[in-house]
């Protein structure tokens, strides 16, 4: 098979921080 090459404009490290939402705990409805 012929390998497929993907051209990436910018490496991931240059895209800035990626914010991942934590699964838990959930939102505070009243106060902490």
């Amino acid at each position, binding site marked *: 098979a012929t390998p497929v090459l993907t051209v990436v404009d910018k490496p991931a490290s240059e895209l800035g921080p990626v914010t991942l*939402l934590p*699964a*838990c*705990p*959930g*939102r*505070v*409805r*009243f*106060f902490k």
Partner: protein
Amino acid sequence: QINVREPLCDSPEAEEAALLARDYLNAQHNHGYKYELNRIEDIKVHTGPTGDDSYAIEIDLLETNCHVLDPTPLANCTVRPKHLTAVEGDCDVVLKRVDGVLTVVAFKCKTEESREDLCLGCYTLLPLNDTTALKFVHDSLATFNGINPNQTYTILEVGRMSSQVVAGGPQYLAEFIINEANCTGDTCEPLIDPLAERGICTSKGFSFQHTVDCKMFPTLMPIVNDITIGAVPDYPKAVHVLHKHGFGHHKLTALHDPHLSKLLSAESAESAEIV
């Protein structure tokens, strides 16, 4: 083989389990106040070989101002603000979904009062056996009975007592549940009847000078648990009727694991209340 999933704590699936657990815990409670969901701390879903889901959820609950005998829907109850000494419940609940129906299997709760916000001049929650505060409650009841000459009420339960240090000494803020009484001369008997009037009173001030505001519950709820009845000699018209209960603030029922399923760890053994 058991598969374990960890859905988002704010997912609809987690909210469904948490709200069902909250309603179940409130229904278990026959004294004190209703609790509202504050936060889902953690959730794990175990899927067994038969395809049934078992939920292990940890939730944080906050005390509202609605007594459990108050028929006001929980959605209309107000969570007590932190500065009035918030009481919170941390509960581990196990639920099972069988044929699409989710039910509570077991729970373990511990109740705590928030102490981090204590400040000078703030109200401090008192134990429910504080004699001076109890005298204040009885004086408040006597005041309420005095302004309602056609009807006499007894104390069914003291909900909360707190004090605040002011210039004239400790000022009290108390909440108590009243029950219609049947009086003959100086002897009063509480009407243990679904038709008996009940309500919640808030009193504030000192034993010699205070304000009392009572809100009667609009609908009727039967009493389902045993009560202790004993006359209080100093208060001939105030028969003291209290649910069997410890002297700390009202707590959520601590543990319920009917099948001894070992679904809940015993890492923090809680002292169970007599309910």
